[in-house]
């Protein structure tokens, strides 16, 4: 039980860190990659919570397709956030 709790605590910490990084990055490509890492950690968390079905969907849609859509959108617009 204890190693699973430790792993869960590490993953939740990683979720908070990557979520903060998504907001903090001014480089939008780096923010998209941080969002992919967020989705991957969320998929692992779903798997630990014994929902492997949701974990596969999250890894496929969140980490794969959404990142691709963001990268294509960044290709069409600008890479860096502008200062106000």
């Amino acid at each position: 039980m204890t190693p699973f709790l430790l792993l869960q605590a590490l993953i939740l910490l990683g979720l908070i860190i990557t979520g903060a990084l998504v907001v903090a990055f001014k480089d939008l490509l780096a923010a998209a990659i941080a969002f992919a890492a967020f989705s991957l950690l969320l998929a692992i968390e779903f798997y630990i919570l014994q929902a492997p079905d949701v974990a596969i969907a999250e890894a496929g849609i969140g980490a794969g397709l959404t990142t691709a859509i963001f990268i294509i959108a960044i290709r069409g617009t600008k890479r860096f956030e502008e200062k106000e």
Partner: protein
Amino acid sequence: MKMTKIVRTTADVFYPFCLVFGLYVVMHGHLTPGGGFQGGAVMATGAALLLVAHAYEDITGRLRKTAMKILEAIGLMMFLFAGLSGLLFERPFMGNWMAFTGKWFSHPVAHGPNPGDLNTAGLLPLLNIGVGIEVLGGLTIILLYMLSGIHAEKKP
């Protein structure tokens, strides 16, 4: 705009493995976690990898819009006719007439812990395959239209 040669080669090598893993998730949808939607999403992730790595002109030969439209239509039709086929055998819509007939996907399920038999569950694998094809076509065509819109905007 295309990425470096390392990224392109990695995407080319990774693409068939993505497709095979997606097909595995689809085919074992009635035995293991996953199913039509998840497997189709995994396959579409492979297509997204190719689309992100390559330039749009290089990818149109391998992933065509018309082929993806046809895939989407085939998946939807397969789901619909698999559901309607129950009416021919005096069952309701989505009635599982294929189970226990001794033909495809129709072995009886073993009791207790067992390694899992692919030839079970009757109509459900057909529905899973239909949904998998549908999701692959639908998600890939979203990405293709986004990329082609950007390509057309930047051309002049």
